């Protein structure tokens, strides 16, 4: 299970090289996303898509809010 993290935690982990992944659909990502985030829509989240991530670095996933 992913560990919940708040805004300050995101900023701290980004400084340490964490990877940001927005799991919303592509159009929403293109409109607005966190700096440096990549897009892997939830429906496309599989081993192949995850292969673009560095397993040695923390991964932060997010969407719009709690949903």
């Amino acid at each position: 299970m992913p560990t919940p993290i708040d805004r300050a935690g995101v900023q701290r982990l980004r400084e340490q090289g964490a990877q940001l992944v927005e799991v919303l659909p592509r159009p929403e990502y293109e409109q607005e996303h966190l700096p440096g985030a990549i897009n892997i829509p939830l429906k496309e989240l599989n081993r192949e898509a995850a292969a673009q991530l560095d397993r040695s670095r923390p991964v932060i996933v997010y969407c719009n809010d709690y949903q």
Partner: protein
Amino acid sequence: MGFEQVYDYEHGKRDWGSSGLPREGTATDEPSAGDLARRDVPTCGLDEDLGAVRERVRAAGWDTCIVVNDRNVVLGRLGRRAIRGDDDVTVEDAMREGPSTVRPSIGVQALVDRMRENDLTSYPVTTSDGRLVGLVLLEDAERRLG
């Protein structure tokens, strides 16, 4: 999938945008209140005397002051009239409580529309948890619209 360090930013993009932090994407091309907010707006605390605050505010070239607590959460505002009060009155007694605020993510057009509707020339810009980002002025927003 074999990842050892996975975190869930539960509050997500909405929380990030409302805090005034940088964003990327096509929708961020329009300037927002966070981009326009003047970060140097003076602040003061509830217990300060008006005379000392007024001196500080005017020395900084302002005629208004945002009242905040020790976590930078907005509590009130001293406007032009209030700040001219007696020297020994406390900020708490002189301020207007709970001023209207806007989030940093509101676009400049929507911001100008809201200011005109409410006949206001400025808004404190605050994060979703009430912390002060700065003060956005109608003149700055109108200038940006061109």
